[in-house]
């Protein structure tokens, strides 16, 4: 029993040291990780609404979004949407005008199958933006649908529909709420 106790102590001490090291590392990297996330969000916002000169982060009934301003007047919204894709959650930002026309979509994070679902944010050689997301520009956010407006990615129908459906319901719920 005495020996068991000694073993436990040694393991406990090692665990304690490990936790301390990790806590310190976490404290050091945390601000940097958050800054990176904000940086990516800002880059996505700029790509979606290049004309806007300032963005204001807001929350409405749990929906996180940005108001985009151009010369002091409201020019659109950028919604943070989470879609349930094939391999996990897809986090994206969709930019819409106040009357519900999509201005652009950017994927922040996804875990779709490499080669298939991962094409949702694939940039083709010689092009600047992802070809799948480009299809959304100019479509009405509340009615956008695969087949009708959007060509699904070959072999990745679920991913394509997940993105499209999440934008449609997300925008619908948001526009109803924001009008009120």
């Amino acid at each position, binding site marked *: 029993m005495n020996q068991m106790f*000694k*073993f436990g102590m*040694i*393991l406990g001490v*090692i*665990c304690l040291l*490990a936790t301390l*090291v*990790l806590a310190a*590392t*976490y404290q050091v*990297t945390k601000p*940097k*990780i958050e800054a*990176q*996330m904000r940086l*990516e969000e800002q880059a996505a916002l700029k790509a979606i609404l290049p004309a806007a000169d300032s963005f204001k982060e807001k929350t409405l009934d749990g929906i996180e979004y940005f108001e985009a301003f151009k010369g002091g007047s409201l020019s659109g919204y950028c919604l943070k949407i989470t879609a349930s894709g094939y391999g996990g959650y897809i986090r994206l930002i969709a930019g819409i005008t106040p009357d519900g026309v999509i201005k652009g979509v950017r994927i922040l*994070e996804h*875990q779709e*199958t*490499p*080669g*298939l679902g991962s094409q949702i944010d694939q940039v083709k*050689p010689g092009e600047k933006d992802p070809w799948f997301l480009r299809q959304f520009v100019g479509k009405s956010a509340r009615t956008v649908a695969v087949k009708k407006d959007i060509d699904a990615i070959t*072999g990745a129908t679920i991913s394509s529909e997940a993105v499209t459906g999440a934008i449609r319901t997300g925008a619908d719920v948001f526009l109803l709420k924001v009008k009120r």
Partner: protein
Amino acid sequence: MKMMGEFIKGLWRENPTFRIVLGLCPTLAVSTSVSNGIGMGVAATFVLIGSNIFVSLVRNIVPEKVRIPCFIVIIATFVTIVDLFMKAYSPALSRSLGMFVPLIVVNCIVLGRAEAFSSKEPPLRSIMDALGMGIGFTWALILISAIRELLGNGSIAGIYISRSFEPPLFMILAPGALLTIGLLIGMINYFTTKRR
């Protein structure tokens, strides 16, 4: 000279991927593009070096019976450090490797080296061993991912080489990975046994 031997053996003679056939999950899962392969290789090398040093340092303090849990804790610590730093300084890479960064903790190469080598050897030699194994693992990953990316996507490290053929998608998917490593090991066996 002996130090050099510890380093060199991991590169070819005891290459973890092609010779010992260990640590396959990350090898196959992340080798869809060269940049992923390099990222995974470097991350695993860092974990190998870190854990090998510490395992070697505590090798005389830790009793035989609890050594595996102790080694695992040390390895998991380094994995988490890599994970956090990757998130902070290379979020894109961290995202494309996804859950395979925490999975380095169960990479058989890391625990295998801790158990087979650094729990018996002094720190300096353990570093050389880790460095050799890490680089051996990294070049294997780069080779596999280069083949898969070239054939499956028509590019190497994101640069498009040829658009003259429609890349067979299956090389990027799971079957392509298994086929690539199977044929590579077969080829290596063929050439090494022939020489003898």
